């Protein structure tokens, strides 16, 4: 990604209260970037879904939240990393309703819809990295 990073922070995700901290950190930066209330809500909701997946499916990990700039556009980039079991079939995981954990299977596909860019890197046995950007 050719974006310049203006600022970045890392939150460790080890418990459900860390998911709350992750949401709050993303909210603070989304406000700083002057995203509209609807856009803030979308980004924070996506962050909440992805942070929970990191915790519940990835066995914990971390989130980087970065203010990025690409030419004249600024945006918020969220990166979630874990060293859990990985995702065997990414296409299947993204489809609404697919879950291996008794959820609704909406988190991954839903957060992709809520963000502008969405990228999953995963290797079975090695972990998962998800990068999502919302541009202003």
């Amino acid at each position, binding site marked *: 990604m050719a974006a310049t990073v203006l600022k970045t922070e890392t939150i460790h995700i080890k*418990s*459900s*209260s860390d*998911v*709350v901290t992750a*949401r*709050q950190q993303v*909210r603070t930066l989304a406000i700083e970037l002057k995203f509209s*209330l*609807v856009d*803030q*809500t*979308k980004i*924070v*909701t996506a962050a*909440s*879904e992805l942070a*929970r997946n990191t915790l519940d499916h990835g066995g914990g990990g971390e989130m980087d939240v970065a203010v990025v700039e690409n030419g004249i556009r600024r945006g918020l980039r969220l990166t979630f990393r874990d060293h859990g079991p990985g995702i065997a079939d990414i296409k299947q995981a993204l489809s*609404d309703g697919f879950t291996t954990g008794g*959820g*609704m299977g*909406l*988190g991954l*596909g*839903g*957060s992709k*819809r*809520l963000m502008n860019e969405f990228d999953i890197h995963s290797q079975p046995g090695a972990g998962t990295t998800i990068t999502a950007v919302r541009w202003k």
Partner: protein
Amino acid sequence: MDRIPILRMGNFLLVTIQVDMHDRLALTLQDDLTNRISEVGARGVLIDISSLEIVDSFIGRTLANIASMARVLDAQTVVVGMQPAVAITLVELGMSLPGIRTALNVESGMEYLQETAEAGMEIGVYGGDSTED
């Protein structure tokens, strides 16, 4: 451990969610509400989410679970005060909150609960009459 308070008003239970709930807190609320409904024989549950800045799939599922457990215990649930930005985001997330009755504010939510409780009682009275005949 912290808990979200549940207020009782006659036959109804009222909950105002004022904090950014972590998942365990949401599950505790689900359990506490289910217990209180059966303890007091509540006929309705009103959940005010006007301070909630997001509703994600977990909170949505928790609200749906509360509503269906309440229904099994013969109580209606109404969720009130969802912020417009939250509603827009929920739709894009793909959650339709199935089986959840919503209202714009506490007043109209209470009206709904009162009406359904009264309607329920009338059915009960007529049922009683017809068996005596």
